[in-house]
């Protein structure tokens, strides 16, 4: 971990957005706009059972009555929900059996992104469920996972193969009407990932999904559901990059985690959606609902995220600590540059006895960006002897950026302890000069200092992600000082 900085090369500082290319593949579009027919079209495309269609339609009807939230600090022009496509799938002639059947252009895209699926199969020992636009195109290691009874597949496949599990858990962490964007997702979600770890099983490998938006003007509505049954363990990695484009792209994902008694889920994200150019033009709107349910006693859920992309980030991965002695963690690095707007944080809802939560948030803002941490710690009357520790650090690189920390703390019993620490600082000229006097150029110096600032969180990432994350931090902060 400590030796990763020197892996940065000139290559890392070249392109403003090195993943800004677009693969030419004919997409199978649903007509533009959103109405009941579109919801039916999507459900039909996926051969879904009737109950799921009804579930979607109920979400859609509720969505129509809901209002877009405006309590956060992000500002953007009104979104025309009728001016977007809600379904796009890479064209396929037959069902894909193996990677050999995948469109070579698609595989090339992955290679450009540095995700050689085939290599990863045997090199990294990571099973990858690659989501391209909205349909999963290849799932690796399925057989090996099957031996342990682990289910790791696309969401639509799970709907067909494991309908009971889907029906039992879907929407139980985030109700389909939870909020405006979750309701929208529930109505039109196209695909995503599904994970089930049976009782007592420690998932033998890190599970990983790479998301990528590719069809112009297509909203991306991923749906992920991870269930860790009693005394099981899973580490799930999610990473995203998106190609450059001019118009804004709406992304409203939903991720639900369920940890039963004694189970542990570690969910890590590296998010690098296109952030818009240096004038604030373009970029992804990222409205995500992520929530984990520590449903059983002694369960544990840990969110770790590195967010460098998106024009707008609206995201609060949360933990509901229902089981006694359960614990939730949130480790976050959020970088904002140019005109990016970040309003992100977490919610820790303490319901069970002796529950604990830990929040470490590192915000780095530069350019003209705004970066807000918004977090709720709520300890309910019956949640005796519970604890929370929160630390929010902000680092500012320019005079024109802003950083805010907005904690909401509610403690409703006297046996619990809540701690909150916050700092904000600027990279000092003396620190920069010191590094440069030792031979680091300005960008290397900034990168070193920022990586140091984020160390507590970077350490929480799985090794292969930590390296990628450090690289991302440097790329995102390119040209941010001076």
């Amino acid at each position, binding site marked *: 971990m*400590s*030796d990763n*900085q*020197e892996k940065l090369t000139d290559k890392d500082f070249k392109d403003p957005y090195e993943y800004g290319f677009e693969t030419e593949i004919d997409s199978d579009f649903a007509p533009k706009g959103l109405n009941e027919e579109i919801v039916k079209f999507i459900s039909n495309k996926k051969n879904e059972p009737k109950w799921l269609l009804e579930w979607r339609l109920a979400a859609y009807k509720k969505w129509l009555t809901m209002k877009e939230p405006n309590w956060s600090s992000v500002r953007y022009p009104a979104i025309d929900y009728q001016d977007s496509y809600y379904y796009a799938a890479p064209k396929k002639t037959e069902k894909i059996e193996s990677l050999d059947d995948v469109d070579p252009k698609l595989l090339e895209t992955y290679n450009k992104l540095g995700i050689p699926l085939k290599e990863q199969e045997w090199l990294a020992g990571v099973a990858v469920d690659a989501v391209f636009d909205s349909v999963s195109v290849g799932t690796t290691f399925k057989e090996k996972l099957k031996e342990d009874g682990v289910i790791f597949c696309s969401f639509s496949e799970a709907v067909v193969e494991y309908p009971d599990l889907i029906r039992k858990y879907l929407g139980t962490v985030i109700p389909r009407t939870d909020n405006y964007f979750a309701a929208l997702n529930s109505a039109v979600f196209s695909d995503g990932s599904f994970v089930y770890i049976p009782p007592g099983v420690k998932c033998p490998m890190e599970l990983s999904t790479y998301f990528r938006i590719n069809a112009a003007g297509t909203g991306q509505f991923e749906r992920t559901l991870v269930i860790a049954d009693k005394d099981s363990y899973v580490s799930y990695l999610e990473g995203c990059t998106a190609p450059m484009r001019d118009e804004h792209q709406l992304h409203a994902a939903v991720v639900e985690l369920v940890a039963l008694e004694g189970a542990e889920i570690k969910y890590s994200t590296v998010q690098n959606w296109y952030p818009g150019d240096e004038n604030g033009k373009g970029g992804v709107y990222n409205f995500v609902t992520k929530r984990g349910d520590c449903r059983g006693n002694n369960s544990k859920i840990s969110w770790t995220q590195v967010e460098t992309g998106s024009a707008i980030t609206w995201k609060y991965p949360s933990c509901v600590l229902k089981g006694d002695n359960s614990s939730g963690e949130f480790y976050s690095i959020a970088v904002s540059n140019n005109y990016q707007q970040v309003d992100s944080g977490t919610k820790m809802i303490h319901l069970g006895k002796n529950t604990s939560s830990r929040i470490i948030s590192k915000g780095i803002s530069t350019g003209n960006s705004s970066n807000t941490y918004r977090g709720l710690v709520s300890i309910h009357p019956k949640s005796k002897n519970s604890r929370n520790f929160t630390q929010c650090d902000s680092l500012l690189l320019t005079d024109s950026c802003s950083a805010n920390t907005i904690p909401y703390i509610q403690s409703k019993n006297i046996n619990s302890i809540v701690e909150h620490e916050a700092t904000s600082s600027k990279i*000092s*000229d*003396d*620190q920069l*000069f*010191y*590094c*440069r*006097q*030792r*031979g*680091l*150029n*300005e960008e*290397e*110096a900034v990168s*070193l*200092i920022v*990586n*140091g*600032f*984020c*160390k*507590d969180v970077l350490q929480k990432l799985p090794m292969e992600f930590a390296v990628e994350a450090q690289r991302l931090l440097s790329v995102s902060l390119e040209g941010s000082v001076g």
Partner: protein
Amino acid sequence: MKNFLKIKDLSISVEDKCIIKNLNLNINKGEVHALMGPNGCGKSTLSNVLAGKEGYNITNGKISFSGENLLKFSPDERANKGIFLAFQYPVEIPGVTNINFIKTALESNRQYNGLDPIKPGDFLKLIKEKSKLLGISDENLKRQLNVGFSGGEKKRNEALQLMMLEPSLAILDETDSGLDVDAFKIVADAVNSTRSKKNSMLIITHYQRLLERIQPDIVHVFINGSIIESGGPELAEEIDKNGYERFNNA
């Protein structure tokens, strides 16, 4: 090389206040020069300007280093060309370990000078050898750079970086301050061990004690931004005995 560092008629001001006036100083390769002066005489200004820190207005004069116009280079270029400043007040960089910082700096130096990256094993061997000389424990190598270190420990870190980076011109800015007697000896002797015909040193201090262990070839008395008198090591002894009074009245 003659005139490895050549400062000619240098005048520097900060916010319209003249700090250095018509300074002339030549250091040949392999020479150790000491610059002695009372507090506030402009010593640190000079070391900052040599290292390329912003915020100083060079109103007159030239500085050449190894035959090139030093002033046109950025701080990192100067560092990679061989100028090392041991800071009077080393900064803290949270989250970055001592050892990683040194490795990053060394790699930058090597890359700039067209050398292959050092092998991890070789690096480890080298840094262990040097830190042993300075009495720096493995544990301290893994600590965050200067965070929570005592003044003396910070100075040891500076000396370690100096030994690892092997600069051709080392500028020591009050390296002896903040060191207790034992640490002082260790650091001074370690720095002294880096002396060779290939590199030069500029030692900035107001006490003579450091110069007993790192004996300079030439001592300059630096008062109010100018060199008033130059001589051999005996000049340092005289200052130690009588202070700067004679020069102030000069």
